[in-house]
């Protein structure tokens, strides 16, 4: 008795999940509930959403509504218990529906194709007739060849008044939809694996800084098992504008005390080591940081020298008898359009410039001559000194940090696989069709010559026009081949 009840419950559950109505309801329910999370900002500080809610429900009611929404999981709704439940129901429904339908589809796929009766052929939508002067055997041969050349799987049947060739291709395209369903389950599996065995984190590394841990959004450290170091960070701008063209950092991986990997990363071009990937995601200035000026000096004769200098440091270009002292720095040097004065127009390193006070000594200068000049990093021509010497302002290093998004997701492989599977499945399900072609050949004798009446009929699960064209093609190829065979026979 108890056993029977159990099977009943199981049966009932099974038929509940096998229902197509449930599938449509779940699809639409997921669609509707998903809207909530796009309106309420997810995982942000309460104030922002309370502000939003007070616009809708009034200032007084907003905190209460907010608390109710928190209980309903709306503030992180895509991970809430009920949304997860909906997704679980959805995958159960998908699985059971597919399992339920698959055997029927499989039987249809496996069902042998049968020849078409004369009446059935008359009623086909796609039909073509022709009479060809040839013998039955030749016609049969050539139609076989022609159908096979179009990759049809051909059978033949002898009939009272002739022969029927019946053929099909693409009968497996019925399975395309199951491939798509499998890929959706794969995606969900990949997502679960990613959530279970992977992590999402971030780390801000100052230029020259290193770390062996990264942090989750809630601030917990995750050990990497190796050290990640940032050599430098740089924003590249489109020439002549302040529009960023690329955000770049040079990263180094130090594992077991050895430098094992070095890569310049950009947005769209991350670095991966031991399954952990580092993405360029943000940047910024380190407050109150004192950096180091990197200058590259090229003298007229081509001698190059790179120097690392502090504020107030002096350097020399021996060949020219020029001494320089670093006296000022601006992260974003520009000219005020009204007053024409030099100003710093941004806090970030949009247009870094270093001011150097030069003093020249020597016969040509009669004593000492001093002058101050700004050298701009993005405009190398500002570093050309009288006499053809050149100072390049490489970087004011050590004042910026690079913001890295760090993630480890072993599920991604499955997601990629699922993507490929889904693309193939969609292609099969929507762009390929199951086509059948029947060719009935009836020999006729008119006078001395043999001729064959050909009736072709076809059916396609989609894109009938394409099948019509294909049938014409098959007919013309067969008749051409027959014409070519004619003279040889004589």
């Amino acid at each position, binding site marked *: 008795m108890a056993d029977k009840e159990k099977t009943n419950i199981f049966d009932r559950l099974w038929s509940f999940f096998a229902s*197509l*109505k449930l*599938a*449509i309801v779940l*699809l*639409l329910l*997921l*669609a509707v509930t*998903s*809207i909530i*999370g*796009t*309106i309420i*900002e*997810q995982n942000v500080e309460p104030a922002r959403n309370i502000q939003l809610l007070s616009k809708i429900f009034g200032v007084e009611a907003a905190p209460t509504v907010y608390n109710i929404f928190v209980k309903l999981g709306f503030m992180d709704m*895509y991970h809430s218990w009920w949304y997860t439940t909906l997704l679980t129901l959805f995958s159960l429904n998908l699985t059971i529906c597919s399992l339920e339908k698959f055997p029927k589809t499989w039987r249809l796929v496996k069902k042998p194709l049968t020849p078409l009766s004369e009446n059935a052929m008359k009623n086909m939508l796609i039909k073509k007739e022709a009479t060809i002067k040839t013998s039955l055997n030749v016609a049969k041969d050539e139609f076989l060849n022609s159908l096979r050349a179009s990759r049809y799987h051909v059978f033949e049947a002898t009939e009272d008044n002739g022969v029927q060739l019946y053929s099909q291709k693409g009968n497996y395209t019925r399975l395309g939809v199951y491939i798509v369903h499998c890929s959706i389950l794969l995606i969900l599996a990949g*997502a679960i694996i990613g959530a279970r065995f992977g992590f*999402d984190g971030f780390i801000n590394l100052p230029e020259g800084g290193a770390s062996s841990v990264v942090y989750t959004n809630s601030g917990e450290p995750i050990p990497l098992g190796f050290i990640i170091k940032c050599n430098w960070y740089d924003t590249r701008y*489109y*020439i002549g*504008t302040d*529009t*960023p*063209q*690329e*955000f770049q950092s040079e990263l180094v991986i130090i594992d077991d005390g050895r430098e094992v990997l070095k890569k310049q990363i*950009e*947005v*769209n*071009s*991350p670095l991966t080591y031991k399954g952990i*990937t580092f*993405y360029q*995601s943000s940047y910024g200035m380190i407050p109150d940081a004192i950096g180091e000026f990197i200058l590259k000096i090229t003298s007229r004769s081509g001698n190059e020298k790179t120097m690392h200098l502090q504020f107030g440091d002096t350097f020399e270009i021996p060949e020219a008898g020029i001494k320089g002292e670093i006296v000022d720095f601006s992260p974003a040097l520009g000219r005020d359009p009204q007053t024409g004065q030099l100003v710093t127009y941004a806090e970030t390193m949009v247009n870094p410039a270093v001011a150097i006070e030069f003093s020249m000594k020597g016969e040509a200068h009669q004593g000492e001559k001093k002058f101050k000049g700004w050298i701009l990093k993005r405009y190398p021509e500002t570093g050309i000194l009288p006499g053809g010497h050149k100072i390049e302002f490489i970087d004011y290093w050590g004042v910026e940090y690079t913001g890295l*998004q*760090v*993630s480890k*997701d072993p599920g*991604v492989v499955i*997601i*990629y696989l699922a*993507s490929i599977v*889904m*693309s193939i499945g*969609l*292609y099969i*399900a*929507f*762009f390929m069709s199951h086509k059948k072609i029947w060719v009935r050949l009836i020999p006729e004798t008119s006078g001395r010559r043999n001729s064959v009446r050909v009736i072709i009929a076809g059916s396609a699960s*989609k894109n009938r*026009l394409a099948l019509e064209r294909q049938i014409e093609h098959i007919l013309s190829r067969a008749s051409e081949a027959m014409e070519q065979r004619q003279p040889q026979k004589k």
Partner: protein
Amino acid sequence: MDSSTFFSISTLSYFIAMALYISYVAFRKSAIAITATTVMILGFFFQSIALILRWVDSYNLWVSTTPSTTFIESILRGAPLRNLYESLVFFVWCLVLIHLIIEFKYKTRTLGAFVMPVAALALAFIDVSGMSKEIQPLIPALQSNWLLFHVFLSFIGYAAFGVSFAAALAYLVMATESRTERAYIFWSITVGIFLIVLIAMGIDYLSMSTASQGDFIRNYFLKATFKSSSGGVVTLSWVLSIAFILLLWRYGLGLKKILTGLAITKNMLEEIEYKSIAIGFPLFSIGGLIMGAIWANSAWGTYWSWDPKEVWSLITWLIYAGYLHARFVAGWRGKKVAVLALIGFIGVVFTYLGVNLFLSGLHAYGGL
């Protein structure tokens, strides 16, 4: 002539073509229909030239700023699909292309009266929203080979959905019998809201034209009507809108009389509706969702981050998946699925424009 001149000519042609298609439906003179098609093809021709010219311009811009990239890469980086303006123009191009194919395949010119307004709405939206038409340098996040394929396929999908919307709407117009029918109420209200929002945006544009072109539409969206500081204007907007919808509801049945007897049948419309979805759905799935996920993973480190744009494209995908199952597995036909097709396109419009207008997120560069 530069690309913007050609764009203007094509926009003008499309508006004329729309007027012609509608008058063909009203007056049933085949000469008008042939003129409509001719004007549309001319518009399409000019728009294609404009697209190519713009592509060349942005290719040159890319090469001038980044001479070191290879030829192919520069072509990919120059693709004119980098902001909302360019994507809308491309959407219209796809829409007209698909419409042309249908017109020649089904030998009917009636659908133009429904498809061309969708194209015209998109073009009108460009102007009333005051979005930037400049060729902008490509921001770092968009410098990826996925850009072209992701956007290209998504928009062909969107355009196919647009055609299915037009067909489903025409179908509902023809299939609904009385004003109390739910499907009738649904289509008249949907069309009413679409038109009201566009008209309201037009009023925004006219009354706030002092605001600079670069101003984000978010700042003044509906400020001249529904969100006006004057209570009277707000009331008036609501009253007029409700009156407008009521009028549409009252006289919408007249459209049915106009449509019947033309070279278009309900069956044909239903076929166009589901065939467009059958083309749009796989392209949108592969180009929009799958390629988008792969790209997101290589740029942001996560293939799915529940960003509003992602969620809305999922919503759209779910609605169309519901449509396909309702139609092909559950055997729903006619008005029921046509309503789903309309809802699906509302999802598309929101994914495409609504998210950029109202919600913030990672896809913010698709802004105006």
